[in-house]
């Protein structure tokens, strides 16, 4: 993490926004873990409790989301995979309706039909899905639509490092490069695809190297650093808006929790996560802001209170909302 003022060549407001958004995202998942575990103790049962089904948390991976979303407006598109909370929050998805969706409520973004892996907020052009690499083509399409409309909007597709070995990754990048579309693929290298380490899935050390296969730019961001992510993204977004085509940004990031909740994690060392938590990006950015005099203790406390209040409000909204009527299952297959 950049430790001197001169390296922090990013606007103070952006830095604070990134901090607040990371705090919000982290706290959001703390709250979700608890809700998820309700009804799942003493015996874990994936289908029990108020939040059933799979739950993939992004705790530790916040820098990837905030570093690039700091450059986006609601006209820009974001597609996200099965691990979407940090992206959704950074993109400004309606937190109340997102949370209600995860609780399966009728007030949710998808009226309870989608759930945690299927959040759609067209207001801020956010979507996610549960099939690896499948969101990249959707971002290509959004980028194509922007070009056709003559707008300088960009599209960002987030994927995990495991997804970079799926055919759709290749097809999409070739197409976007060929058509010089404003696409940025952000590869979150959290070292694992479920249990498989990157070295067991990927023939190259990092996916920015694959930019060579499309004649485009690639960047690798080390150390889960939100500031470096911000800088790499700034350049990629600028190029995209200028009609200079796509970029691959890979960021080294850290998955503190299991692949999904309930993952026994037999495949990794018990020391790994505690060590990662010691270099947590949220703590680091906070310390940095304080040590560099960018924010005072009071300000960071205020930020934290505000972020948590948003989450708490969303949580209460979700819990207090109604379930859909069972027979509503038959609606929304087709619109008329």
């Amino acid at each position, binding site marked *: 993490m950049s430790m001197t003022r001169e390296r922090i060549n990013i606007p103070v407001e952006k830095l604070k926004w990134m901090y607040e958004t990371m705090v919000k995202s982290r706290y959001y998942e703390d709250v979700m873990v608890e809700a998820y575990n309700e009804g799942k103790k003493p015996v874990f049962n994936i289908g029990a409790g108020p939040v059933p089904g799979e739950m993939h948390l992004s705790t530790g991976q916040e820098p990837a989301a905030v570093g690039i979303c700091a450059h986006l407006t609601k006209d820009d598109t974001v597609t996200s995979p099965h691990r979407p909370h940090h992206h959704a929050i950074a993109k400004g998805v309606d937190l109340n309706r997102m949370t209600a969706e995860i609780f399966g409520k009728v007030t949710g973004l998808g009226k309870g*039909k*989608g759930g945690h892996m*299927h959040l759609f907020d067209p207001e801020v052009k956010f979507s996610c899905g549960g099939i690896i690499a499948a969101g*990249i083509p959707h971002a*290509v399409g959004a980028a194509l*639509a*922007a070009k056709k409309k003559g707008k300088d909007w960009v599209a960002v597709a987030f994927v995990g490092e495991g997804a970079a070995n799926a055919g*759709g990754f290749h097809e999409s990048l070739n197409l976007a490069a060929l058509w010089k579309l404003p696409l940025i693929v952000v590869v979150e290298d959290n070292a694992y695809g479920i249990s498989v380490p990157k070295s067991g899935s990927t023939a190259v050390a990092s996916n920015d190297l694959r930019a060579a296969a499309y004649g485009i730019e690639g960047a690798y961001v080390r150390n889960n650093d939100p500031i470096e992510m911000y800088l790499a993204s700034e350049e990629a977004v600028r190029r995209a808006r200028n009609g200079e085509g796509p970029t691959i940004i890979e960021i080294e990031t850290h998955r503190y929790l299991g692949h999904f909740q309930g993952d026994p994690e037999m495949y990794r060392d018990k020391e790994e996560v505690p060590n990662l938590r010691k270099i947590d990006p949220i703590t680091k950015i906070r310390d940095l802001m304080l040590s560099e005099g960018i924010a005072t203790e009071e300000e960071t406390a205020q930020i934290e209170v505000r972020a948590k209040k948003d989450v708490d409000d969303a949580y209460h909204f979700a819990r207090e909302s109604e379930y859909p009527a069972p027979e509503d299952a038959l609606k929304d297959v087709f619109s008329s």
Partner: protein
Amino acid sequence: METIEKRMLTGNKAMAEAIALEMERDPTVFVLGEDVGKYGGIFGSTQGLFDQFGADRVMDTPISETAFIGAAIGAAAEGMRPITELMFVDFFGVCMDQIYNHMAKIPYMSGGNVKLPMVLMTAVGGGYNDAAQHSQTLYATFAHLPGMKVVAPSTPYDLKGMMISAIRDDNPVVFMFHKTLQGLGWMDQLDASISHVPKEDYTVPLDKANVVREGKDVTIVGLQMTMHYALEAAEKLAEEGIEAEVIDLRSIAPIDKETIIKSVKRTHRLIVVDEDYLSCGISAEVSAIIAEEALYELEAPVKRIAVPDVPLPYSRPLEQFVLPNANKIYDEAMKLINEW
């Protein structure tokens, strides 16, 4: 005597005309797919469009079906109305995820908040010895999976009218056109592949079967080639004094149950003819609908004629053996009537 000038168009020209009319009307409509540009679509579905609308609206793509069909989804979500072509339906396996898990489900998963007004057109059908990977119809593969409207028009008139409906529909529509019914110069020349098509735009609904021949003795349900075979068989049956009612299914999702049930209530006998595989096919679905909703109307077992669960073989005698044809329909109809 009034003379009506008949404007005869082949199937492919009817389709291309539909797309052209909609592209003129609506700037958000565009086409993308393999060889849809200068080539005009391998089966002529986009003939002339490139010249009229240029490379920006009629876009050749790489051989990347996942990327470009997925891109159509992404563009549709942003308010465009893409028409994308999967060259042969047989290639669905490289891109079905985008089709059935995303195109078909996003509207539902979003609780109706995301609309995907797009058309996926694709060529189906065999009979010209293109072997196992280029000859299938796969009607049921698409009809089985919820969230997409699936149509398979059989005449130039319907190809145009249903294409216009499909483009204007706010839902994803899979538009299957039969190669042999495109009226292409390099394939079998079929009378049915050319017919009167009005110049102006018009729509044909995406959820209505069509009774193309009335009759009282037996209902024959078919679609695309099998509908035309059914008509041919009906002519022969008529010579024997048997009046077959022929239904052109046209829409396979949703399926028009009412029209079929009404017909069976009249004829009390049912043959379903399908160029797709037998098991879990459209022929099974139509049969099951009747077994569930009009069982006591039946005076004979429901007969299915379809490809008998083998891949389409290459060699002519083999392929002809497994495909439906008018003679097979005639024979089964005679049996149904004489033996029951």
